[in-house]
């Protein structure tokens, strides 16, 4: 079968997620059609969704403006998979602790935006992730941390703070698994 993967494309690193989900599908011998979502009406046709990195204030504003937000909530309510990274994680959280971001409450977590500091504090480092045999090279860019976890499983921590979680069909990461060419997090979210 061919999987239909929707990448939320109102803003952010969309093509990187498109490439990552394609190579993950290829590894599992599945075909994939990637749909870029910049307007309402496309999400209901998608099997899986990817919420990319970018600026959470901008993404939040546009998905509400375009009427995409309720469609994403329905996608998750119907138990369909989502991978949300960095800004995507913030938008998917229950609470971002910041009125500038109107979150979707897909993940039972609260997040703290820009928790590692400014861009000069951004970093990459190998990270142990539950479900992966070897460390994952995680790229943190003005990244959020998960400040509290409700009914969700923590998959990875950085200096004792959660940076990857799974809540039902939704996987969320503070870092950017789409930037390294290593698609194991995409595997974890969609193919395992």
């Amino acid at each position, binding site marked *: 079968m061919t999987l239909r993967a929707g990448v939320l494309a109102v803003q952010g690193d969309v093509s990187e997620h498109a490439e990552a989900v394609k190579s993950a599908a290829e590894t599992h011998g599945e075909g994939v059609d990637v749909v870029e979502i910049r307007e309402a009406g496309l999400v209901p046709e998608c099997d899986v969704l990817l919420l990319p990195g970018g*600026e959470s*204030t901008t993404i939040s504003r546009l998905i509400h403006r375009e009427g995409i937000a309720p469609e994403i909530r329905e996608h998750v309510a119907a138990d369909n998979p989502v991978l949300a990274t960095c800004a995507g994680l913030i938008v998917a959280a229950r609470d971002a602790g910041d009125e500038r971001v109107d979150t979707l409450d897909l993940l039972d977590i609260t997040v703290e935006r820009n928790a590692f500091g400014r861009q000069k504090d951004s970093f990459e480092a190998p990270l142990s992730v539950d479900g992966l045999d070897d460390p994952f090279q995680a790229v943190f860019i003005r990244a959020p941390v998960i400040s509290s976890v409700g009914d969700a499983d923590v998959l*990875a921590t950085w200096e004792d703070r959660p940076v990857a979680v799974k809540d039902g069909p939704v996987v969320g990461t503070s870092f950017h698994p789409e930037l390294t060419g290593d698609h194991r997090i995409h595997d974890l979210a969609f193919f395992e």
Partner: protein
Amino acid sequence: MTETDLEDLRRGTDLVKRGFAKMQKGGVIMDVVNPEQARIAEDAGAVAVMALEAVPADIRKRGGVARMADPADVEEIIDEVSIPVMGKSRIGHTKEAQILEAIGVDMIDESEVLTPADDAYHIDKREFTSPFVCGARNLGEALRRIDEGAAMIRTKGEAGTGDVNQAVHHQRTIKSAIRKLDGMSHEEREAWAREHEAPAELVHETAEMGRLPVVNFAAGGIATPADAALMMHHECDGIFVGSGIFGAEDPQAMGEAIVEAVNNWDDPETLAAIASNIGSGMKGDANADLPEDEQMQGRGV
């Protein structure tokens, strides 16, 4: 879970610097001169703000030497918003760039809008933890800047004019050169690199990718939602708007409209609605009337 080794943590790598630029894609970066403007820009949906002392249109009018903004003013803007804050240094002015990095600016624009500090050299951007964006008029310039360490390229356009003509010209020039490289043999690409003073390795990489190896934004003269959509049509990854927001009659409405136009650049009916009733754009000066000695785009090649 096993402990991760903190010694393996690395900052300021190409991946981290170019990654930051990728997070700006599909977004609008707006010039602001004070915290109030920064607030309006963030509320309008800007992905980042460029903090400077005066917008390019005012720099043009004022004349004299244009320098980095007062660091205290930039810090006030940093404190005001949650989105990234960028700052401009003069071309070749390593110290202005270091000061901007020290106060926590997220990206440094080594910009022709300010008066160049060095006639021969740009900043060695590889030495910095912070990522840089640089302007370019053509592929050779773009690849020289990337070789120096730029993590993002923007068209130079002709800043402060409100005339999109030169941004279109520069983007077309870059894309056209990449298309030509695509049809060339290895040795023809080597010859092209020598002729255009571009590093051969980057020429090959660009040819193979069919695009610049870093994010490619539009800048210089973008003043309306339609201008922004036009630059997205020309395959730019996102938009800088300088004087076009706060030189407009209603900056909030213009800012929101340009953000929405970038998302809907390929949908003319939606663009028509977005562009309606937002007040007049900045007045501007046509590029064709601008004498060469008043052009900024020739600075720092």
